[in-house]
């Protein structure tokens, strides 16, 4: 803030005006009105309301946005020279060696595309690659899903999970009569912003119970039962981010009954299908339960984690409708949301996904590699849990092995986290969330030491 004021007071505006004057060959003085179409020769030149300063930037008052807290963790980690530092902030998979991973089957698909002379880079349709869309719907809803067979599903390619949520949100803001979306507390930091900019109003429902480090199921049901008819409910399909706490199948069934009886509209965020349990079908159960009852829902799918395609921005938004006729009309309206945003989605990542999903052998290879990633994470959970038990670390740490997916909500408080960063060079977000993907067998002992110290020394 101070810098902006300083800038306004010092050189810039004067410099701009001087430059202008020189270019136009006039004497710069406020009273000179030869520059302006003015009737009154002695009228003073006044800048328009949009000019930050006459001739200067109109964006002078733009202040720097606060840094993203999660990215800030990586920035701090990179700066640390300690050889024992561990980055548990990153929301991307890492191997045992701490390296990013490109799946073998993805490399194969890429080679096929590169070597295919007929593969061009023309614009995709607004709704994206048709094959990709069909295959994505089958992946999440099941190949035998009646909704698909009855053509009641419209699927459009979007930019990963974020893009799918945004496009879905914009569609609902324009065409759904109820503009409130209920999101779990806590949830991924970007969810509220996505839906707000889409034009929805955001409310929360209880989700995480800090005392049990599990699901606050009673309050969840209470909150949703108070939602108005038609309200949208955001549900994490599996591997809740950031807590790793998922409802059981029984609890999902109760949630489904409540949502349907209250006439609420479910919007699933599926960012970890296959990545949570290692099994694609199991991780889609929650969604399929809802589709099986014949009702409507929205689903945002991401291939960032489960296919390691992070930066390619591959995802899909599906809307399951009551009838094929409705689905067609809905799709036509989705195009009107997409076209003024980015015209049509990027081709590369979707081509890779389609190549893999449509080939039986490559699909199988993918499931194997996916399970390996999920298994490694589950192993890390077990190792960390065991290490804490061995050290006799006070407290119940069973949530580490009960929670699922990439993240664990440790239950550590801000002070404890700060301590762990300072004394043990452990980098994680201040809410106590750690990315299990950033752990390896080598670093688990160090993390266990850090947690033990933090819990025993800081309350």
């Amino acid at each position, binding site marked *: 803030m101070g810098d902006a004021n300083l800038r306004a007071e010092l050189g810039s505006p004067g410099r701009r005006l001087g430059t202008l004057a020189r270019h136009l060959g006039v004497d710069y003085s406020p009273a000179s009105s030869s520059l302006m179409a003015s009737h009154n020769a002695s009228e003073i030149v006044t800048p328009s309301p949009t000019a930050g300063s006459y001739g200067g930037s109109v964006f002078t008052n*733009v202040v720097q946005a606060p840094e993203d807290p999660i990215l800030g963790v990586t920035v701090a980690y990179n700066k640390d020279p300690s050889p024992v530092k561990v980055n548990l902030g990153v929301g991307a998979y890492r191997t045992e060696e701490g390296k990013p991973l490109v799946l073998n089957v993805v490399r194969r698909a890429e080679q096929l595309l590169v070597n295919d002379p007929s593969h061009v880079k023309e614009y995709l349709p607004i709704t994206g690659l048709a094959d990709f869309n069909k295959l994505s719907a089958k992946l999440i809803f099941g190949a035998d899903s009646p909704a698909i067979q009855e053509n009641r599903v419209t699927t459009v390619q979007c930019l990963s999970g974020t893009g799918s949520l*945004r496009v879905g949100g914009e569609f609902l803001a324009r065409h759904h009569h109820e503009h409130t979306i209920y999101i779990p507390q806590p949830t991924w930091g970007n969810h509220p912003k996505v839906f707000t900019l889409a034009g929805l109003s955001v409310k929360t429902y209880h989700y995480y119970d800090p005392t049990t480090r599990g699901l606050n199921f009673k309050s969840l049901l209470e909150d949703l039962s108070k939602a108005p008819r038609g309200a949208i409910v955001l549900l994490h399909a599996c591997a809740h981010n950031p807590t790793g706490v998922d409802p059981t199948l029984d609890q999902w069934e109760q949630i489904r009954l409540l949502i349907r009886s209250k006439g609420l509209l479910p919007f699933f965020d599926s960012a970890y299908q296959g990545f949570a349990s290692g099994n694609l079908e199991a991780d889609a159960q929650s969604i399929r339960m809802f589709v099986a009852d014949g009702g409507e829902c929205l689903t945002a799918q991401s291939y960032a984690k489960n296919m390691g395609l992070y930066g390619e921005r591959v995802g899909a938004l599906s809307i399951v409708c009551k009838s094929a006729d409705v689905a067609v009309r809905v799709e036509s309206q989705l195009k009107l949301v997409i076209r003024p945003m980015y015209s049509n*989605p990027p081709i590369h990542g979707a081509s890779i996904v389609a190549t893999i999903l449509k080939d039986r052998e490559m699909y199988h290879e993918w499931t194997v590699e996916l399970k390996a990633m999920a298994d490694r994470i589950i192993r890390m959970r077990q190792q960390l849990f065991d290490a804490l038990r061995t050290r006799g670390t006070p407290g119940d740490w069973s949530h580490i092995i009960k929670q699922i997916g990439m993240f664990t909500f440790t239950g550590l408080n801000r002070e404890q986290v700060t301590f762990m960063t300072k004394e043990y060079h452990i980098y994680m977000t201040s809410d106590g969330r750690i990315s299990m993907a950033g752990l390896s067998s080598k670093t688990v002992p160090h993390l266990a030491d850090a947690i033990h110290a933090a819990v025993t020394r800081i309350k």
Partner: protein
Amino acid sequence: MAAISREILKRRGIHRSPVMATIGTRSMASWFGHVEPAAKDPILGVTEAFLADPSPDKVNVGVGAYRDDNGKPVVLECVREAERRIAGNLNMEYLPMGGSIKMIEESLKLAYGEDSELIKEKRIAAVQALSGTGACRLFADFQKRFLPDTQIYIPIPTWANHHNIWRDACVPQRTFRYYHPETRGLDFASMMDDIKNAPNGSFFLLHACAHNPTGVDPSEEQWREISYQFKVKNHFPFFDMAYQGFASGDPNRDAKAIRIFLEDGHLIGCAQSYAKNMGLYGQRVGCLSILCDDELQAVAVKSQLQQLARPMYSNPPVHGALVVSIILGDPELKSLWLKEVKGMADRIIGMRKALRENLEKLGSPLSWEHITNQIGMFCYSGMTPEQVDRLTDEFHIYMTRNGRISMAGVTTGNAGYLANAIHEVTKSS
């Protein structure tokens, strides 16, 4: 936050669809039963119709994508080579929210000049965007957020999606006169009038080169006058540059308008696209830049652009950005690219000549000078919708009903046929 979303809907003029009587009955009725079918995109409809036509003579001059002399889409050699280097070698981690630093650096050099002082002074806030559309949309959203009382002046005519972009960003639109139907050239006098009459500090959308859909660009002299008037009025110039290199064959020449404005000290905004000039259409790679007073401000502006990108798609796609970085960052590949882009531009210029000569040879009573006067991918032929319909019905020639011909779809094989058809439908006018 609720106020923001209500405001967004109000400004977009979105009226809520009527509520169904059956809402509330569990599993009984669709939430979306009232949703109207959206009107089809006029441009895409052309290609659909073309594909459905079985005639062996059919010609598609609606498509806004380059075709070679055999009517086939092209992947540039430099792109194929870049992709060979990418496949198997690099990881696919998230880019930063603002996109690839390397790609941005190279894009700024391309637009602002290799040795631009502005780049050295770090005064340009720039982010990777989803091609030209994404760059325009980010700018429109940014304009809305930080200068909510401003509007945008858009030329008549323009690419149809420009209107959609600023509308969805909730920025009010005005227009300024641009195309002169009688001369099929620039209506410079009216344009200057509109620039002068706009309130001081207005935001203007300018096509840096190869105006879409008319192919009509101001001359260098005219650009200088426009720039001068912009200074007088303190207008904000936002350049949409979708065809750098593709128009004349020379990227520096095609950036002339921008360079003139920069010399005159304007603080411009610029949307760049690599869809056409690198043939990267489906990769969606582009760059949005905003020239600021100083480095501090550029950092602030960039951080805010990122805040707009984050809730839209988090971070931009890496593949296309890698292709651009590799090509522009490697002197050999860059030089190959320059050759290839010139090749594309030259072929189009050649087809303009051929089409015009054919029409003149047929003894057309009309003037077809504008075909070679206009520049870039498109030619605004001046034909009426009825004439265009005849071209489609009688000759299986597909183009948009505003009479816009995509020269990229013209080949030595079909130029004669096209000329003949155009002559047939226009000779009595």
